[in-house]
């Protein structure tokens, strides 16, 4: 309606504002991308020519990210953590969706609210609480079963996985529940009338219906896990994930290699983001 004539001043102001917003949100991403290919070791302007060295170079003092053993190790750790977190969280999400959509029980509303808790609690508090809790359990296990029995609950791979599952599973539950709510249970009944067992009906009819939401939720889970800092920071051990390693390096200064890592992450998360967007378009969650 503001497209009518007579509002030209407000129209001008709106468009100016829109352009400013575009600059503010996209400008930093564009700048970092340009600098990742700038042959300037100070990781800043002026432009000194195009280079791919910050991605691939084993020259001492100019190591590219693909030749940086610690960075590659961190990428590997992040991917492994994200895959495990995704699998557990999607499985929990499907489980919880059936629990909340297909069943009615006392305390269901309260349990649903409790389930939202991990999204509301600050990541730092979530991280500290899991650290404090697992510390006590690990000590207990060591005492009962001998030293080393509780090691998997000390800061490291599995503790990071558990910490991330605590809040990622809430998101997957919300996404998958939204889709299951739109499923018509009479389809399952029809399959059973035609001779399918209940588990066959769920496996052949309901799960395929949920698949887009499961894939969408899986991509979100992967991204959340891969990008998480606050909770992971308290739980990671000697093998850090990418965000933790980047953070510890940033405290000592900026290198062009970090620009390159950022570009790599932007591209990968951008692609994953687009895919999840496409999968979720039909289910309006949140």
């Amino acid at each position, binding site marked *: 309606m503001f497209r009518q004539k007579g509002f030209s001043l407000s129209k001008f102001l709106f468009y100016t504002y*829109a352009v400013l917003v575009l600059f503010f949100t996209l400008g930093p991403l564009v700048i970092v991308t340009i600098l990742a290919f700038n042959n300037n070791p100070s990781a800043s302007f002026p432009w000194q020519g195009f280079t791919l060295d910050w991605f691939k170079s084993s020259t001492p003092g100019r190591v590219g990210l693909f030749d940086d053993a610690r960075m590659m190790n961190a990428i590997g750790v992040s991917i492994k953590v994200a895959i495990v977190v995704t699998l557990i969280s999607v499985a929990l999400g499907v489980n919880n969706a059936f629990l909340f959509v297909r069943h009615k029980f006392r305390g269901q509303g309260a349990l649903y609210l409790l389930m939202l808790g991990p999204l509301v609690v600050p990541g730092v508090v979530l991280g500290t609480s899991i650290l404090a809790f697992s510390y006590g359990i690990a000590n207990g296990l060591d005492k009962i079963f001998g030293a080393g029995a509780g090691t998997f609950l000390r800061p490291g791979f599995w503790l990071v996985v558990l910490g991330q599952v605590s809040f990622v599973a809430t998101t997957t539950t919300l996404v998958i529940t939204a889709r299951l709510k739109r499923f018509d249970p009479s389809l399952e009944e029809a399959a059973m009338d035609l001779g399918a067992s209940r588990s066959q009906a769920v496996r052949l009819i309901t799960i395929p219906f949920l698949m887009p939401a499961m894939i969408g939720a899986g991509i979100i889970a992967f991204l959340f896990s891969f990008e998480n800092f606050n909770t992971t920071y308290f739980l990671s051990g000697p093998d850090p994930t990418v965000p933790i390693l980047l953070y510890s390096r940033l405290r000592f200064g900026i290198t062009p290699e970090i620009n390159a890592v950022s570009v790599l992450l932007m591209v990968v998360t951008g692609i994953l983001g687009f895919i999840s967007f496409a999968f979720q378009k039909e289910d309006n969650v949140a």
Partner: protein
Amino acid sequence: MSASARRRGLWLLLLPMLLWIGLLFVLPHLKLFYLSFVDRRSGSFTLANYLYFFQSPLYRKIFVRTAVFSVLVTLLTLFVSFPIAFIITKVAGKRLKAMLLLAVILPYWVSELIQAFTWMVIFRESGVLSYVLQKIGLINHPIEFLYHDATIAVGLLYTSLLFMTIPIMNSLDTLDNSLIEAAYDLGGDFWSTMREIVIPHAAPGIMVGSIMVFMLNLGNYVTVTLLGGKNSLWFTEIIYNQFIVRFNQNLGSAFSVILLTFSVVFVWIVLKITKQDLSEAM
């Protein structure tokens, strides 16, 4: 399906859910609560951890600073986001709408760490802003723009823009355009239409967005420590220091409980004052 089979099915689904929420959420927080009332050395009950906080001018100051700063940045985010949401839902044509949506969502897909990093690249002494200002002759030597409150505010605004814009968009979407036109036809000008029609209709979205952004600011760690450095003085930082640097779980737990309690109570009070119902707004 028989009643007993249904019951068994219920328990099969309930078990993983309870294991997850119990072991990874409820019990850890109970442990945190418990630890906060325990003396670090003797292991006996004490209020000393909380007293330590209330008697320390420095920690009190950091806490108040974090809370006030979070509120101010939330308001800033609201003022910046509202026009974006309005333009996207009521003004923009198809192309601009898609571009603006992408502009708001794209930074969100990049991790918070990378977001903060991009602002470091821009604001540091040998950074892009300093370089550009020298090039155009506004300054004649490099200036450090990092480690100021304004820098932290920009970083926080950047990370939370989406969380404010989307809820406001959702509530503006349901506002019938003819209502705005009617307001104009009845002689209302732009501001009175905003005040009387648009903003009241967007109130639930504003509420949801503000609460989310406030909680994100309060619990932020990466953005404030990277952009604020030693000057960030953020409450989450002292929680980290107690747990990881000093290895004092009891004091750290008390700080965590204080942060959590404050955020819940604050949001509850705001909801009461503004007479908004969160479940309605969601």
